[in-house]
């Protein structure tokens, strides 16, 4: 019986395939991001120094915010939350950054 139940596993994976939507991943427009999740920045905004190395910033901004080194209200000076932060956050399933600053 249990052997038969194991067939559930591949079936689930196939169901996943059928349900998943195709979408281009969120990426900075300036780096060739396209589609509904392209990350848009206001033209002419320069990235602050702490965004470099870029790779580190992308993967660790949450830790630095959690540690209190940065505050979300600083970010939204340059970032439109809907046009940038939340494109990524919606994609990977992280809580949205609210426009009402907290």
């Amino acid at each position, binding site marked *: *019986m249990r052997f038969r139940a*194991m067939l559930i596993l*591949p079936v689930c994976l196939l169901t996943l*395939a059928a*349900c*998943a939507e*195709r979408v281009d991943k969120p990426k900075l427009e300036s780096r060739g991001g396209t589609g509904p999740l392209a990350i848009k920045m206001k033209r002419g905004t320069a990235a602050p120094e702490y965004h470099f190395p870029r790779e580190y910033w992308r993967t660790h901004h949450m830790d630095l915010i959690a540690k209190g080194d940065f505050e979300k209200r600083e970010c939204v000076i340059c970032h439109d939350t809907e046009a940038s932060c939340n494109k990524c956050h919606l994609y990977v*399933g992280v809580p949205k950054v609210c426009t009402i600053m907290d």
Partner: protein
Amino acid sequence: MAGFLSLFYIFFSYLAFFVLAAGTFYLFIRVPHAISASVPGGPGRFKLLVNLAGDVLFARGTLKNEGKLLWFFETVFHWAFFLVVLRHMRYFFYPVRGVILGFQDSGIIAGYVLPVPLIMLAAVRLARKTPGRIVYLLFLLASLSGILMTSLARPDLVDIKAFVLGLITLRPVLLERADPVFLFHFSMVLLLLVAVPLAMARRALNTQEDVPFKKPSSIPEIAPQNPGILEKEET
């Protein structure tokens, strides 16, 4: 480098899925049917389903064969793993539904709990040479590398989700960065995809934990009574 590794992993992902599908299908049709609802005097389909749920959710096989302590760890493992899998659903779906978001926090906590029962189970089963013991080692390594990624060595989640969604939607894309911790984690998962069904089959045949009721005496001796029957059938 990332491109080459991506191709490598794309190939092995589909291979692992193929082996999993073919293997479970093989078991589905080939494993002796002594424990199916068609046995006269056996329990009905519903009861079998309830039994099965009991086996998976409460690890009854372990309770019967390996005692209370291991049963406890096995149950904790099953439930923690369940929550962790729910958390991982956010990597497999776009858009990510509210239900999945609701399980994120419990998934993280469960992720930190997971290695504890796994260490105990792996230790005992490696010592006892239980069939399929390699699975616990793979689980342990997967779980430790997973914890590493939520805490110290965060990978580029966006890149990884794009890779995984590409695999799932049958339109694979390359990784932009080859994150070693992620690739290790992913390798363990691919190995598990193949090893888990195999291990379960071998363990069930060896310990008869799959037989949820006494066979009526009128039924001739077939099937799981006989350890190693799979190997015999294959030759």
